[in-house]
């Protein structure tokens, strides 16, 4: 035990050497543990003072190696800057996605340093919440955030993006195949208003509803099987293979739409022997496109609510209503849909073309689900006979009856939100002053307003701060 008086630089150097030795010992010890087959789980405990030296650029790598070998690392008595530094170390050194969660103002720098920052709103103020990407009310909601909502969010984004590309690709490729038969002159296959409103009116609402409401497994099952989270880590739903499958499906479907409709339009179309023109053929094709693309969305859903039916049915209905009205107004399309719908050919084509178009996707889905299932599909199968935890018999009944759970949950949401009594000042808690002071060996008295404040807080929630040490 060496006692130094005054020479801070020398003190720092010696401390650094000690820390370095310690770290090396720990690292060797950890590696030795790992060489045994079933080693125990290791935890690293390091405090702020040591961390001050361990985060030195020369020792940082060793610290990182040691930390990554351990199951968990506990850093105690760290300053906000050190929190941010440790987070950055893992973020840049280990190249992993990092998540920080904190509730106080001292966590703000850590929350901002990580990839995903989660703030807990509550008694420490709203500082962490304001600096974070996600705000939750209690620490234990983190599991919900990751395992339930994070996972659903990933699934939804992947599916919405790939579906969007698919539906536009299908629609555009039918026009592309047409160009081969127009002498490459650039004549459009569809009327211009059909094209403009395709993405706005006829196919937009179902995919929005899907993005809002899709669930592959319910919330309780998501938490029961946290291994499902691995699908997001492995990026199962947005690989090039998945995108290519959708693109292939779009190409196949566009070929079906174009060729089936045009090939069967050479001769007279009904018993009066009259023939179809360009706009008749393209209206039939467009009808098939809209119906197929919307039904494809339903095929893709894992959980179908009333809104799905409304939006898909509504979009198809909107198309028919639109074309009925539009055919009465626009000169070149005049009465086309009425002419077309007066032939048997239209109904036969309307039955055949979407079915053939969706057949390949259905086969692919069946084969994939059967022989190469995703994990969530297996979980769905395990629990397929259980009633949905949200539905109850007669869920659409008029009465306002809620179960006890729902009533409690609803009542909570009706309570006024708790406002924090704190001003939210950073660094105003007594812990820091006395910490730094104790390092210097100085005793700092507690401030009066601080004592009063601590006394006014609820007794259960905060343990009395440690008295400053000499």
């Amino acid at each position, binding site marked *: 035990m060496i006692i130094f008086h005054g020479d801070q630089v020398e003190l720092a150097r010696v401390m650094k050497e000690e820390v370095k030795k310690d770290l090396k010992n720990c690292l060797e010890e950890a590696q030795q543990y790992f060489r045994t087959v079933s080693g125990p789980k290791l935890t690293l405990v390091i405090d702020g003072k040591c961390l001050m030296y361990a985060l030195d650029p020369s020792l940082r790598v060793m610290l990182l190696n040691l930390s990554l070998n351990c199951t968990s690392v506990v850093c105690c008595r760290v300053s906000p800057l050190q929190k941010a530094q440790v987070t950055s170390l893992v973020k840049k050194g280990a190249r992993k996605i990092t998540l920080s969660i904190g509730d106080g103002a001292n966590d703000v720098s850590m929350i901002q340093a990580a990839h995903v920052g989660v703030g807990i709103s509550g008694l420490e103020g709203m500082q962490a919440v304001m600096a974070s*990407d*996600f*705000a*939750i*009310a209690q620490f234990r909601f983190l599991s*919900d955030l990751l395992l339930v*909502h994070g996972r659903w969010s990933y699934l939804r984004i992947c599916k919405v993006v790939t579906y969007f590309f698919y539906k536009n690709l299908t629609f555009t490729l039918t026009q592309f195949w*047409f160009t081969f*038969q*127009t002498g490459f*002159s*650039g004549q459009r296959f569809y009327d211009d208003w059909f094209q403009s409103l395709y993405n706005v009116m006829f196919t937009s609402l179902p995919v929005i509803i899907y993005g809002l*409401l899709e*669930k592959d497994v319910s919330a309780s099952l998501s938490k029961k099987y946290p291994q499902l989270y*691995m699908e997001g880590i*492995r990026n199962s739903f947005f690989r090039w293979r998945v995108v290519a499958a959708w693109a292939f499906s779009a190409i196949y479907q566009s070929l079906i739409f174009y060729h089936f409709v*045009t*090939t*069967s339009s*050479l*001769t007279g*179309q*009904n018993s*009066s*022997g*009259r*023939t179809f*023109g*360009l706009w008749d053929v393209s209206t039939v094709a467009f009808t098939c496109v809209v119906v197929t693309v919307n039904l494809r969305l339903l095929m893709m859903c*894992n*959980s*179908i609510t009333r*809104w799905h039916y409304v939006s898909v049915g509504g979009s198809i209905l909107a198309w028919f209503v639109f074309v009925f009205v539009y055919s009465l107004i626009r*000169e070149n399309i*005049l*009465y086309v849909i009425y*002419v077309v719908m007066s032939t048997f*050919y239209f109904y*036969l*084509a309307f039955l*055949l073309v979407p*079915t*053939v178009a969706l057949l390949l996707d259905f086969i692919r889905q069946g084969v994939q689900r*059967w022989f190469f*299932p995703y*994990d969530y*599909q*297996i*979980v769905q199968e395990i629990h*397929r006979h259980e009633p*949905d935890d*949200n539905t109850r018999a007669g869920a659409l009944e008029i009465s*306002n009856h*809620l179960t*006890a759970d729902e*009533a409690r*949950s609803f009542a909570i949401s*009706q*309570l006024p939100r708790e406002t924090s009594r704190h001003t939210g000042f950073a660094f105003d808690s007594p812990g820091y002053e006395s910490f730094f002071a104790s390092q210097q060996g100085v005793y700092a008295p507690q401030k009066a307003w601080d004592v009063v404040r601590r006394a006014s807080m*609820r007794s259960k929630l905060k343990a009395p701060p440690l008295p400053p040490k000499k």
Partner: protein
Amino acid sequence: MGQFELPIESSFSAMDVDGGGISTASSLSSSVPPPSRRKKALYQFTQQSLPACKPVLTPAWVISTFLVLGVAFIPVGIVSLHASNSVVEIVERYDAECVPDAYKSNKVAYIKNGSISKNCTKLLKVDKLMKAPIYIYYQLDNYYQNHRRYVKSRSDKQLLDGLQNNDTSSCKPEESNGGLPVVPCGLVAWSLFNDSYIFTRGAVPLKVNRKNIAWKSDRDHKFGKRVYPFNFQNGSLIGGGKLDPHIPLSDQEDLIVWMRTAALPSFRKLYGRIEEDLHPSDLITVNLTNNYNTYSFGGAKKLVLSTSSWLGGKNDFLGVFYIFVGSSCIFISLVFLLLHLKDSRPCGDATFSYWNRKNVSL
């Protein structure tokens, strides 16, 4: 940074400080009035707890769907194919043979020369009974009525309003002639098909009904009843047939049929109807005038006589494809059934999940 509020899904104990538990909950729920239906629906929507149907695609569903599709499609296909097979069709290409020998090497000169007679005679032999009405079509091949500039070159407003309409700029270059406007303007009308056909069976002429060959909606709503052709086909370059200026456009059915631009480069348009039966081994003599110039661009002209069924003309495509799809569905369902019986993954067996297969530890 955007914020995301996590919905509070858990129970009352979330805000519970002293562990009141169930008793506090029930007292609370009895004191709060039951939420209105709209509030309840909104609550379910925002909390993502809407009642939902969760279809799981089991092998049973796949096999039965394919079986149902197959069983449903094959009869429809058979009916369609039967309808198409019941149609009798005679197709005769005439543009190659109807050129006199002297001009066989220079057909374009022949067709453009107004002084040479364009009459031609062809013989058609009827093989099967053709019941009335028998439809007469002319078929053009390699004729791009769907070319962009061709489709654009018309004025639908002028077809309805006639000379009152001045907005005919889309009809260029066939907009006006000699300073006067052309009704109907545009390339589509200018290139009107003008071959004609006269049919005789032996010595008896067959009456061809040339009325009611256009769609009724076109005659009623697209072509004006008080619009007459004006200054039509008066230029130096003749594109096709002429129109009688005393007949209103809504009665000029040839023009109406022609102006319904076709979708593909090979198309048929209705010429007229024969209202009598044609018996097998009848010999029909067609006196046709080979006026229309398809030689400049390598097109072909064909004359088609066809009966019609409830489904339309002779087109096997729908019928064949229904049968094809139906039988492939049945075949696929059998294949799946065999696979299911032979080697099936048990439904809901967690040993097939990724985490069990790869022994990934968490």
